[in-house]
């Protein structure tokens, strides 16, 4: 009985997890609470079984994540006995940096900067991420082991050759690696694997009546009292779900009736717009993601 496509992708990911745990000094897994992170966590649990993953998990919390994401994160960490580190840019939070007044700078300060600070603070030399090459054009060219200089920046013109499964994990001083074990998975593979392995995901992926407002064509959930409502703007209960998860004021939902996994998967795979379009930052000029990555965005 030959291996199926999912078996092959799983084997590749497990191999990468084990290589990093064996060769890298201080690995960490970035945990963003989304479905790709759920798959990554599941793979990490499998790779080392019956041992627990021999590294901590790190969540960069902007302070504006959906409440359900935080609940889900804490519950999973407890159930599986994970070493879950949570890092927030407290200085910026105290300064009142927020997604309403500070636009693109907010993402930079609360996510990119906070991630760099956290990696530096703990001295992590290798960070697992759930990036996939099918997400975006510049990611399509990124290696599985992607090196960052001391400023956590990526140099797309000088990537290390990656031959067969022979990963070179040697670092120069100040360098660190981002490792993407599910580089070769597609959106469809991720969903099919979640179904096959029965992997828990955040309930926000399932349609439910939620309080929302509509702004510039985006459906924004009123997750707490901090969402500033325009005069006359009134939250309405609508059956919505989310295709990607992030900071609630910046994440658009979609109207949907899909409240079971098969229904969500059917909807996800027949979508006519690609996944990342509901993230506001990607709509900037062509090449914006590559620019961000050069600057250290994951």
């Amino acid at each position, binding site marked *: 009985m*030959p*291996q*199926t*496509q999912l*078996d*092959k992708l*799983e*084997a590749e990911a*497990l*191999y990468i997890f*084990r*290589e990093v*745990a*064996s*060769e890298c000094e201080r690995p960490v897994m970035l945990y963003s609470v989304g479905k790709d992170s759920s798959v990554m966590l599941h793979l990490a*649990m*499998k*790779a*080392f*079984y*019956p*041992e*627990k993953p021999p590294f901590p998990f790190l969540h960069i919390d902007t302070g504006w994540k959906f409440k359900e994401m935080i609940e889900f994160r804490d519950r999973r960490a407890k159930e599986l006995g994970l070493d879950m580190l949570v890092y927030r840019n407290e200085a910026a939070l105290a300064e009142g940096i927020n997604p309403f007044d500070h636009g693109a700078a907010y993402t930079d300060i609360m996510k990119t900067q906070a991630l760099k600070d956290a990696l530096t603070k703990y001295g992590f030399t290798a960070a697992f991420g759930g990036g996939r*090459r*099918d997400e*975006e*054009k*510049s990611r*399509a*060219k990124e290696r599985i082991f992607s090196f960052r200089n001391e400023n956590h920046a990526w140099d*797309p*013109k000088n*990537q*290390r*050759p*990656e*031959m*067969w*499964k*022979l990963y*070179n994990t*040697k*670092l*120069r001083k100040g360098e660190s690696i981002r490792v993407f074990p599910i*580089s*070769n998975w*597609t959106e*469809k593979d991720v969903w099919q694997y979640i179904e096959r392995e029965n992997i828990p995901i955040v309930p926000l992926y399932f349609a439910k009546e939620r309080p929302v407002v509509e702004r510039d064509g985006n459906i924004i959930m009123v997750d707490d009292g901090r969402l500033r409502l325009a005069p006359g703007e009134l939250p309405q209960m609508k059956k919505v779900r989310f295709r990607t998860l992030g900071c609630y004021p910046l994440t658009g939902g979609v109207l949907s009736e899909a409240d079971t996994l*098969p229904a969500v*998967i*059917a909807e996800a*795979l027949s*979508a*006519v*717009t*690609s996944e990342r*379009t509901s993230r506001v930052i990607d709509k900037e000029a*062509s*090449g914006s993601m*590559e620019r961000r990555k050069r600057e250290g965005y994951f």
Partner: protein
Amino acid sequence: MTKASENGLLKFITCGSVDDGKSTLLGHILYDSKLLFADQEQALILDSQVGSRRGEIDYSLLLDGLMAEREQGITIDVAYRYFATSKRSFIAADTPGHEEYTRNMAVGASFADLAVILVDASRGVLTQTRRHARICALMGIRHFVFAVNKMDLEAYSEETFRAVSAGINALSGELGLENVVAIPVSATEGDNVTELSCRMKWYEGPTLLGFLETADISGASPEEGFYMPVQRVCRPDHTFRGFQGQIEAGRVGAGDLLTALPSGEIALVKSIYLADKKVESAFVGQPVTLQLDREVDVSRGCVLARNAGLKTEKSFFASLLWMDDQKLIPGKDYWVKVATKLLPAIVTGIRHKVDVNSGELTAADSIGKNEIVECELVLSEPAVLSEFRSHKGLGGLILIDRVSHATSACGVITSAGKQAGTGVYLNDGEHSLQVSLFDGFLYHPDIHAILRHSPNPAIYKPGDALPLREAGLAYPSDFDVASDFGFANVRNGVFTGFGAREPRYALLDPRGLDLDIPPPRDFTKYRKISVWEKDYEI
């Protein structure tokens, strides 16, 4: 949900020279197969208006993702694309054609099971076609499709296609390529890409996509035996000790007898976990944890095997593709990684350079980026390995620069073992002198002959003690060895480096002959010749 993987996953590489239209071809497959999301399609149409085809859709823009590539209009690094049809899922590695980026092409080739090589119908097999095919073959690809492109510019002529095909056949013979197919196409017009062309009725084969959907890549003969390089030892507590890795060949079942290499200890398989599930047996490609029935000396880099014919060697010959801006320096210390084993190694001898375009062998003493070289490597200690043609998982290697940490080269082991030739070297990091000082000589009474017995390969560095008195040897503690780069100084039994001659000490040649004595020289001055008897080993 649709099941798209009836024929499994196919990883393939597309390669061709700068203007052959690789990106256009792959872009066309994605576009025609309606595999694009609607918003990507809109972005493509918008992008094309500033592109080179004046409003016509420029399919290559789908693939040339990096800003630098858009500026230069060429592909400088591998782009991976994912798509599926009703018959099969695909991962396509679109690779750069330019010679300067050969190493990036090799990255794509090492990933792929099949190569699609574009050939311009008007130009036939070119230098770069030969280069691409050679690199793909070197990296172990066994299935080739030559897409003879731009047939629209050749009036869809059968004669032209036949002429190009003849060149392809000649090249295939020269490189020993297996499973070769040629298909006439037009990437811009779409002929024979996803649909059969009505303009080439003389062509009776499949379309390019049709061929990719049905190509059987599992047909390659399976590797011999069972083996699994150990990635890590799993020890959650004192009751459990398991060896984790991916099975590279064969199948293993509970109760099987395995040999741990390089120690050679044997043990029975007690239990097998396929990831987190206990199973009775597991096979090639699967990630497993194996528990053995007794304590054996196994750590990362060891190999668990059965009937695989693997070797434990300290030196071997390999073909290397040099990938570093810094040139290859013989005698310099590198790290080599074979499967999960990382260890110091030096390149001791360059046999010759292989012209990446023509395949011509030429003498060379230094090797630069994108050049192929055949050379010998000596490891700091014996490691488990094999020839690439018999065991891919233990025959491929990378070489890592110990200062810059760059991946300096990748390569394949062409021969390992006794016949590969080994040697003993005095090496100061800059120069390397091969010596036969420590060879043993035995008289074999049954054949009335004295035969030489070479010791295990070794590299002695400044500060290393030499085996001057072992197995019938009787060298003085201090002497010099003559060489082309000064005198190798041995002081107090230790190799101290290459330096000046000290006249009060003996002067030897690399074979151990005393040069201070005029001929005829006394061969046995520093060694004795013993009689060979059964079980006598040196």
